[in-house]
C-alpha cells in the first residue's frame, strides 16, 4: 500500500475519485462543461490536495486526536483560500468562469477523506504523493468528462484555452457545420457521459480480470 507505485495506481485507477469513489461529484459534474474548465479546477484541486496532505502529515504529531478534524479543516480552508486568491490575481478570467467551485474545494469530501484516511497516518512525502495522485485521478476523470462533453456538445476541444495560455485557440475537431448536441453540455449530459465513463472503466476492469483468469486457468490445471 505504501510503495509510491501502489499509491499512484490507487489514486489514478483503483480508487479514482471521479469514477470509483464518486466523491466530490458536484464540482465534477458542474465544471466539466469544457476540457479547459474541468482540467483547471482539477489542477487547483491537485494543488490543494498535495499541500493539504503534505502539511497535515508533517504536523500530525502535534495534533491531538480529539481536535484533528477542526485542525484539518482549518488547514484545508486556508490553503484553498490562498489558491483562490492566487487564481483571482493571476488567472482572473478563468477564476470568473470557475466561480464558486474554487472555494468549494474546501467541502470537496475527497480532500478531507484523504487527509483523514492517509495523511494523518503516513510520512509527509507519501502523503503529498497520495494527495497528488488522488488529484491526478480526478483530473483524468474530469478531463475525459469535460473533453467528451465539449466535443459532443460543440464539436470543439480546448475552448477557453486562451484564458490560460494567451494567444492559443480552440481546436475545431468536427466539421464547421456540426449542429452541436448541446444536451452534452447541459446538466443531463454530465450524468449521461459520467455514467458511460464509469461503465467503460468497469468494462476495462472486467476485461482485465477475464484475461488474468484465462491466463491463470491453464497453470492451475497443470
Amino acid at each position: 500500500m505504501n510503495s509510491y507505485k501502489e499509491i499512484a495506481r490507487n489514486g489514478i485507477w483503483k480508487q479514482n475519485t471521479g469514477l470509483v469513489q464518486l466523491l466530490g461529484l458536484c464540482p465534477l459534474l458542474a465544471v466539466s462543461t469544457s476540457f479547459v474548465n474541468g482540467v483547471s479546477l482539477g489542477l487547483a484541486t491537485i494543488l490543494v490536495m498535495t499541500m493539504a496532505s503534505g502539511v497535515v502529515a508533517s504536523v500530525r504529531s502535534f495534533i491531538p486526536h480529539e481536535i484533528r478534524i477542526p485542525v484539518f479543516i482549518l488547514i484545508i480552508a486556508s490553503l484553498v483560500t490562498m489558491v483562490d486568491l492566487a487564481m483571482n490575481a493571476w488567472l482572473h478570467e478563468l477564476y470568473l468562469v470557475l466561480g464558486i467551485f474554487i472555494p468549494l474545494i474546501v467541502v470537496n469530501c475527497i480532500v478531507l477523506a484523504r487527509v483523514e484516511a492517509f495523511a494523518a497516518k503516513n510520512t509527509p512525502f507519501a502523503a503529498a504523493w497520495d494527495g497528488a495522485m488522488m488529484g491526478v485521478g480526478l483530473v483524468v476523470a474530469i478531463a475525459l468528462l469535460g473533453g467528451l462533453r465539449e466535443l459532443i456538445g460543440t464539436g470543439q476541444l480546448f475552448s477557453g484555452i486562451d484564458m490560460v495560455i494567451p494567444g492559443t485557440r480552440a481546436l475545431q475537431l468536427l466539421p464547421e457545420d456540426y449542429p452541436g448536441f448541446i444536451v452534452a453540455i447541459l446538466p443531463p449530459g454530465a450524468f449521461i457521459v459520467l455514467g458511460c465513463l464509469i461503465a467503460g472503466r468497469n468494462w476495462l476492469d472486467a476485461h482485465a480480470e477475464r484475461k488474468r483468469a484465462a491466463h491463470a486457468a491453464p497453470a492451475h490445471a497443470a
Partner: protein
Amino acid sequence: MLKVLLALVPGIAVYVWFFGAAILVQIALASAAALAGEAAMLKARGKPVALFLTDGSALVTAWLIALTFPPIAPWWLTVTATLFAIVVAKHLYGGLGQNPFNPAMVAFAVSIIAFPALMSQWPAVGFTDFAAQMAVVLQSQSAQDAVTMATPLDALRTQLHTPEARATVAGVLGSHATFGNIGGKGWEWIALAYLAGGLWLMQQRIITWHVPAAFLAVLALIATGFSLGNPDRYAGPVFHVVTGGAMLGAFFILTDPVSGATTPRGKLIFAAGAALLTWIIRSFGAYPDGMAFAVLLMNLCVPLIDMGTQPPVFGHKSQKREKRHE
C-alpha cells in the same frame, strides 16, 4: 404490438392528408433505424435477434418518434433520436421490460433540448409539396419561414408571452392561421383519428380504459378550472385535449406497459399526474409541449405508485398492520 401499429394508421392517414407524405418517409427512416439499432444491441448482448425483433416494440417506438417529431425534421435527427431511444433508453437500461423510461419520449426530450430550433420547425398547413418537404428533410435546402409555422401550442404561448401585445386566448385563437375550429388546423382531425384508433385498441382489450380516461379527464378538468377563472390567460379544455401530443399520449404513449404503472389504481394516479404536469409545463414552462417531460417525470414515479397501490397478497398481513404491531 401489431395491433398498436394498426391503430395508429388512421391518425397517420389524416396526417398525410393535412401535412403531406413526408411523415411516411420519417416513419420509414425511424423504423429502419430502430430495427438496425435493436438488432445490433440484441447481438451485442447475446440475445436471440429474430425472436425479439419480431415483437414489434422497436417499431412502436420508431412510429411514436416519427409522429411526435416535426415531419420536416432533418433525416439525421430522426435517425439519431431513434438510435438514442433504442440503444440508450431501452437496451442500456436492460432492454424490453426493464427500461424505466418510455424510449420514444426520451428521444423527444433529448432532441428538443439539443436542437430546439429544428424541433420547432413544423410545416405550415397546406404545405404538402412532397418534393419541397424532402428538400428540407434531406437538408439540401433549409426551411423557410413561408413553409414552416409554429404549432398551435407554440403560437399561443408565444403570443401570450408578449407583454406589449396584451393578447388574450380568444384573440390569439381567432386571429392566427394556425388555429382551426377546436384546436390546431389539421391537428384537431389527427387527434380525433388517434382517438378512434385508441378506442379500437380498448375494444380489442390491448389497453384498459384507466390511463386514457384519467389523463384526458384530468387535463380537461384543470383546463376548465383555469380557463373559467381567467379566460384571457388560459386556454380551454377542448383546446388542450386536441392539441399537441395529448391524444397520442393518452392512448399510445402513457399506455406503454413497460414504463407505465401496472395496477388499475396506479394507472389512474399515473395518468392523472401526467395530465397535471402536462398542463403545468404547457402553461408555464419554457418548452411548448409538456407531454414528453410529463411522461418521463411520471415514469420516475412508477415504482413508488406501484408499491403504494399493490393489492395486499391474500394471507399476508398488510404493511400498515405490521407497523402498528411493532
